């Protein structure tokens, strides 16, 4: 069905249109969020929040971009907010533990095993996901959109509101940083 008609129906609070959008896009949103937050339960929770926001703010969507572009933007923003909240909690728990108020510290997240990766690559991918966590926010987003979602530079530039050369540069820097991190990781662990 034409995307414009679907959006108009949703603006008129047609629940069947909303159901169609959720059914069509939930895997895409879930995978984007999962790549960023690296935790299945958290990713599902954040992905649900993305659709709640879509339902509540569909009237602000001006249709200047595709629906999927808008969904990607909301998903990335929610996932990054989730990561920031988690980091803040961790810092707060650390400060509390210094004053003896909170004995249990929030530890570093365990290795993340993405369910869509074949068995022989699982260990390598877990190391890579650990390295991705250390990338700056923009590089992190661009890398996930390119590698996990398989989006082209042009599509990423639409989502991130950057030029194509800027996306190219972000991805190059992300790869260089990942290489550096992995090199250090292997020098320390082997």
């Amino acid at each position, binding site marked *: 069905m034409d995307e414009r008609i679907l959006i108009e129906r949703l603006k008129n609070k047609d629940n069947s249109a909303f159901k169609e959008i*959720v059914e069509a896009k939930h895997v895409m949103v879930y995978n984007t969020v999962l790549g960023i937050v690296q935790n299945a339960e958290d990713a599902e929770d954040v*992905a649900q929040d993305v659709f709640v926001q879509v339902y509540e703010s569909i009237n602000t969507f001006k249709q200047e971009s595709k629906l999927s572009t808008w969904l990607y933007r909301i998903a990335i923003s929610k996932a990054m907010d989730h990561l920031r909240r988690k980091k803040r909690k961790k810092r707060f728990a650390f400060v509390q533990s210094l004053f003896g108020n909170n004995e249990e510290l929030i530890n570093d997240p365990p290795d993340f095993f993405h369910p869509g990766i074949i068995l022989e690559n699982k260990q390598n*991918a877990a190391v890579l996901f650990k390295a991705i966590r250390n990338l700056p926010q923009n590089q992190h987003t661009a890398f996930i959109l390119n590698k996990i979602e398989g989006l082209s530079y042009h599509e990423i530039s639409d989502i991130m509101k950057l030029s194509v050369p800027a996306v190219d540069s972000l991805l190059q820097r992300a790869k260089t940083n990942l290489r550096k991190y*992995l*090199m250090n990781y292997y020098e320390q662990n082997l």
Partner: protein
Amino acid sequence: MKNNSELNNKLDNILNSINKIKPAVPSPYFYTKVLAKINHSKPTIWEVVSALFLRPTIAFATICFIIAVNAFVLYSKIDNAVSSAGQSELALSDEYNETATALYYLENEKP
């Protein structure tokens, strides 16, 4: 040298490990869970009002307004107090001056 190329191969393998990734699937009843969240997330009027006043800009503006009103009331009271004290002093001196003048004129009045 050999170690270096081995390490580079290892790093390439790691960087390419997510190349053929398949999409993960969320747990079933995703749509039902989203609907439950939408129904649960509708705020009451009090939640809307309190959220409005808890926004930093609104809270800061409200505090500034209250301080300004307090300062205005305080200064206007001090001004009133000063001016009313001054007026009573003036009235008193006028009264005595009038009396003195009147007495002078009375004493020097020609028969």
